[in-house]
């Protein structure tokens, strides 16, 4: 089969999957017959358009996006540096292990609640997302660094290549595909935790605040509309990282 045909088939399948999902949703909402429980998809769409045309929407969306990107940047900076250290040194890995296990095992709500005691409401989502996401990046990057082909490392050792060149020119490029996967995992987690943090900490401008306000008013369609905004943020970042992964895997071939 031609590659172009395969791509258009995949696209058609994706459209079909969305159509099936919308149909199931529509049938479900008709069967329940109560918008307050499960509003119909077209009602959610019209609410989404109304919410998007509201004055505060752009500010809420950009504030949430900024929090998500800040969480992502901090998590990746921490994750790459600590992951690289853990990948290179068994001692570093052993020292980081307890802290990473504790953060991984702590429920996200517990972290958000503690953050609400320690920080102003705008910082809570960022702090919580970083605490939840950076261990994921550490694990991915460390696995990438450790996955370096030992035969290449032996080659470098036999020629006496300095350790810093081995790190920068062999280990780091070997870890590049893992870095892309770490970035994708971290951004996905960041959006989820940032929005959850916003729901609880209620900053003035936030997607999560919109969601929580709608819930308090029992505006289920509006809750769905804000959820859709969150999903779209996640989908856009996923598409960007797909592109990045492809470029990085070309670069290493």
């Amino acid at each position, binding site marked *: 089969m031609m590659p172009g045909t395969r791509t258009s088939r995949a696209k058609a399948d994706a459209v079909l999957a969305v159509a099936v999902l919308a149909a199931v949703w529509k049938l479900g909402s008709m069967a329940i017959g109560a918008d307050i429980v499960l509003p119909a998809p077209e009602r959610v769409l019209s609410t989404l358009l109304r919410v998007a045309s509201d004055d505060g929407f752009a500010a809420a969306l950009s504030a949430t996006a900024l929090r998500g990107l800040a969480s992502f940047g901090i998590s990746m900076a921490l994750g790459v540096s600590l992951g690289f250290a853990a990948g290179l040194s068994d001692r570093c890995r052993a020292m980081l292990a307890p802290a990473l296990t504790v953060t991984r095992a702590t429920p996200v709500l517990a972290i958000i609640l503690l953050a609400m005691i320690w920080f102003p409401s705008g910082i809570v989502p960022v702090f919580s997302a970083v605490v939840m996401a950076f261990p994921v990046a550490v694990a991915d990057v460390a696995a990438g660094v450790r996955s370096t082909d030992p*035969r*290449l490392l032996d080659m470098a050792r036999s*020629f006496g290549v300095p350790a810093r060149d081995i790190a920068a020119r062999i280990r780091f490029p070997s870890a590049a595909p893992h870095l892309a996967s770490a970035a994708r995992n971290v951004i996905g987690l960041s959006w989820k935790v940032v929005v959850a943090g916003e729901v609880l900490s209620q900053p003035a401008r936030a997607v999560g605040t919109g969601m929580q306000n709608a819930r308090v008013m029992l505006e289920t369609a509006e809750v769905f509309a804000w959820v859709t905004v969150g999903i779209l943020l996640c989908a856009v970042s996923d598409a960007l990282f797909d592109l990045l992964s492809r470029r990085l895997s070309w*670069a290493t071939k």
Partner: protein
Amino acid sequence: MGYEVKGLAKSFGELRVLGGLDLEFPAGRVTVVLGPSGCGKTSLLNILAGLDEDYSGEVLGFGPGKASYVFQEDRLMPWMSAMDNVALVLRRFMDRDHAMATAEEALAAVGLHGSRGSKPGAMSGGMRRRVALARAFAYPSEVLLLDEPFSSLDLRTRISVMDLFLDLRERDGRSAVVVTHDVREAIYLGSRIATLSDKPAKTRDVFDLTLAKEDRGFASRAAASFEARLYESILS
């Protein structure tokens, strides 16, 4: 300066691979170590290259950083161009520009000047072997170590890459140790051939070759009669 191993022994757990090997590698010559597959030839080279320090016996003249190693596989970084692959091993001796210029010259010497910017994935097996040879010759070592370096190539490419190696080595004059299980390859490359017994490997015979280059070819009768002597030594 001469190179030598005395009473070299190496084990992996209970498995004795080298059983007290004595062997001289005369300076400026190509010594081929010929032995059956799995008899410990790669272990010997790893020790000579300084990659394996867990052995007993004496190793004279070799050491880490003194040898250029051509491995069984190309061991090129797939994300780097041919030139960057060669320059990487030169960086501790010279600045970046000088390393790149030296790498470019080395690639030109193996006939790959036009492909210096290509990545290994875009090259044929023969071209990648040439890059590995360029890297080994560009590196300022005292001795070349080659581990079955041509066995993965088809006969025609193999002969052309072996000729290239012999030509570069002749001009360069560096000592070389080649390990192989292929008798005809040993005759083609070596000026001295040492045969090894099976595990635990010991030196069985050492032959100094006096055959002219044209008599070493794969179709040569003189080489065929010498081949019989080598088989006799390996299989005895």
